[in-house]
C-alpha cells in the first residue's frame, strides 16, 4: 500500500470517528429538555464537529459528515421534521462558516458563533414553511441569542482542540 492508500485509510477512519462523535452530540441534544417553542428545533451542539472538520480536514469533509449525521440522527432519534430543520440549519450555517473562514480575517470563535446563529435562522425558516405560519418568527430573538451562546462556547472549545490536537487529526 502506497502513501496515498495509507492516507485514504487513515482519513476514512478519522471521518468515521467524527461521524460517531456527531451522532453522540445529536443523541445528547435529543435528551436535553431545552425547548424553543417549536418541536424539533435543536440547540446545534453538533456544530462542534463541523467546525473541527472545517479547520482540520476541509470543507468537503465537513459538509459530507454534517449531512450524513443529519440523516442518521433523524432516523435514529428524530422524525422527518427534525431532518428538514437540521438540513436547512446545517447547510446554511455551513455555508456561512465556510465563507467567513475563507475571508481569513476571523478566528474560530467568531466563525463558530456565526454558525450557531445561522443554524437557528435556518431551522426557523424551515419551520415557518412546514407549519405554513410565519408567526413562529416570534421565537427568532430567543433563538438568535441561544445560537450566539452555543456557537460561542462551541467556538472556544473547538479552538482549544484545534490548538492542542489539530495537527494530529484530519490531514
Amino acid at each position, binding site marked *: 500500500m502506497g502513501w496515498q492508500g495509507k492516507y485514504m485509510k487513515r482519513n476514512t477512519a478519522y471521518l468515521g470517528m467524527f461521524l460517531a462523535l456527531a451522532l453522540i452530540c445529536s443523541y445528547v441534544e435529543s435528551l436535553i429538555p431545552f425547548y424553543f*417553542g417549536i418541536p*424539533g428545533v435543536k440547540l446545534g451542539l453538533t456544530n462542534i464537529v463541523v467546525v473541527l472538520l472545517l479547520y482540520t480536514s476541509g470543507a468537503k469533509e465537513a459538509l459530507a459528515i454534517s449531512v450524513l449525521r443529519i440523516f442518521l440522527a433523524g432516523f435514529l432519534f428524530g422524525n422527518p421534521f427534525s431532518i428538514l430543520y437540521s438540513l436547512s440549519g446545517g447547510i446554511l450555517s455551513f455555508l456561512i462558516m465556510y465563507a467567513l473562514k475563507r475571508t481569513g480575517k*476571523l478566528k474560530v470563535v467568531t466563525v463558530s458563533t456565526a454558525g450557531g446563529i445561522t443554524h437557528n435562522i435556518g431551522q426557523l425558516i424551515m419551520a415557518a414553511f412546514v407549519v405554513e405560519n410565519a408567526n413562529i418568527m416570534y421565537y427568532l430573538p430567543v433563538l438568535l441569542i441561544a445560537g450566539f451562546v452555543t456557537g460561542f462556547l462551541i467556538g472556544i472549545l473547538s479552538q482549544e482542540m484545534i490548538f492542542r490536537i489539530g495537527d494530529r487529526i484530519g490531514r
Partner: protein
Amino acid sequence: MKKRFGKTDILVLAIVFAVLSGIWIFTSFIIKEEGADVVITIDGEFYKQVSLREDQEIKISGDETAANILKIQDGKADMVEADCPDKLCVHQKSISKNGETIVCLPNKVVVEVKSGEDAEYDSVAR
C-alpha cells in the same frame, strides 16, 4: 502563544451580541401583551377561534385520525392531550401573550394567541 481572539473578532462579536440583545429586549417589550383570543390552524388553514376569557376544552381534529385537546383556563391556553408520537406540544408551557404559539408538528396544528382585533381580521381574510 497562538492568538485566540483578534481585534476584528472582539469587535464583530460585541456588535452582533449588542444587536441581538437589542432585538430581544425590543421584541419582548412589544409582544408581551396579554392576548384576547386563540386562533387554531391545521395545516395552515383556519380551524377555530376561541376566547381566552372562557374556560373550556377544545378538541382539535382535522380528520378522524389525529386529535389534540386544548384547555383554556384562567386566560391561558394549554395543550393537555395529543395523539402525536412526540408529545412535544403537550410538554410546552401554556400560552397567554400576543404572538405566543403552541405547535404540534406531526398533526400540523398551530395554536396562536392574538389580540381580539387582529384575530377577527385574520379569520375574515382566511
